[in-house]
């Protein structure tokens, strides 16, 4: 599985780097526009807020993840992977972990960018902002995984009758509702929100793997 994952990351590395380049480019373009039409005060405030550049990196990593999802589907990758002598469960895991890894690489890069920004601008509450980044990342990861799960549900609908996929849809809608509750709920602690969101992400991932295994079963 790790080898398959490593090869996947190697394949999408140029996509990830191009996405980062694009995201960072847009960020600096906005900075340049503010610098021209705004004031130095606006610019300083923006740098002090310090989450814009890391957020741009995170979002562009998520876009790379979605590009990976689309490419895997468009290039019919599973057709190649299932011919390899790898257990089907490991193929399923590599499928969900490849876009996840792209986003996590983005998260690491975002933290580095954030640390550099604060080394330059300084802030008394760096740890809090780092947690904010983690929270954003786990939210983006959730929607990435929901997209993957949705794809498997669509696949299941092609193979099973409509009611057969009904339970899967209900589970997914339930998990999305929970995530909405976490985001809109009254909980103050970012750490708790991150932990619960991460648990939901893990749940969606396990669900996607189960759906994939069900769709690719040789006999039922």
């Amino acid at each position, binding site marked *: 599985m790790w*080898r*398959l994952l490593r*090869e996947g990351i190697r*394949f999408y590395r*140029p996509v990830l780097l191009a996405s980062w380049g694009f995201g960072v480019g847009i960020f600096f373009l906005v900075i340049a526009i503010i610098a021209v039409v705004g004031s130095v005060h606006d610019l300083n405030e923006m740098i002090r807020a310090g989450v814009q550049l890391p957020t741009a990196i995170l979002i562009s990593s998520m876009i790379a993840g979605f590009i990976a999802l689309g490419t895997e589907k468009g*290039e*019919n*990758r*599973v*057709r*190649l*992977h299932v*011919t*390899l*002598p*790898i*257990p*089907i*469960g490991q193929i399923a895991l590599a499928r969900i972990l490849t876009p996840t890894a792209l986003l996590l690489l983005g998260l690491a890069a975002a933290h580095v960018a954030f640390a550099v920004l604060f080394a330059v601008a300084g802030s008394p509450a760096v740890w809090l902002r780092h947690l904010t980044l983690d929270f954003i990342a786990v939210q983006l990861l959730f929607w990435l995984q929901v997209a993957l799960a949705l794809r498997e549900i669509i696949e299941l609908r092609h*193979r099973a009758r409509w009611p057969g996929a009904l339970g899967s849809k209900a589970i997914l809608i339930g998990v999305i509702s929970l995530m909405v509750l976490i985001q809109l709920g009254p909980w103050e602690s970012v750490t708790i929100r991150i932990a619960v969101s991460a648990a939901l992400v893990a749940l969606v991932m396990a669900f996607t793997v189960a759906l994939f295994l069900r769709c*690719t*079963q*040789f*006999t*039922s």
Partner: protein
Amino acid sequence: MPEEGSAEVFGRRVDNRSPAWKSDIGVVGETHGFYRSWTAEENLRFLSRFMPGWSDQRVHRLADRLGLPLGKKVEQLSKGHLAKLALVAALGHGPRLLLLDEPTSGLDPVVRAEVLDVLREVLEDGEHAIFYSTHVLSDIARLADELVFLREGSVLLRSSKDALTERWARISFRLGEADVAVAGAVEYRRVRAEHQVVSHDRDASIAHLRELGAEAMEQSRMTIDEIAVAILRGGHHVAAS
């Protein structure tokens, strides 16, 4: 997709949880899952990392033989080159069984001939088997030993190719201006006193026609294509007075 039962490949149960049996097979389908922005060479290198028994020497020999441009990106390859890449990829680890699903679909005659030549070479040593699914019967006319005809997922007939070509025949004869039921006939056609049958049992049909007193009997061998059409059509009756 089968819904029950089991399968074995060289005595090993087909089980997706312990996939060692896949090392013994190579698969070529109508569609491929190659990494399109990688070159053919990179795709083959990718496969080599997973397939025990992979031989770069074998791969390069095959690629040279087929004129496959290994340095080209997959997205730039023509359909013919893609089919060749799929064949090279399937043979790279020296599998004992090749599973081919319409591998020559949409290919021009030259590429098709090249692919079939390679498959014939694969079979030559008697150590390899090919399971070939196709609608283009001329492809397998020279390759196959055993044929299975399927319609809507059900097996209509399973027979050796030699037995088929030996037993099936088109027989024309003259015998009065009325329809006759001929033993072994699957297709029947009559224009006045001229009759023609397609028989799946040549000997039985000839013997029966002799008993009926048929005259000017002529029989001709049928190609695999013609036999397949007769089998898949399920036999019919045409008469014109």
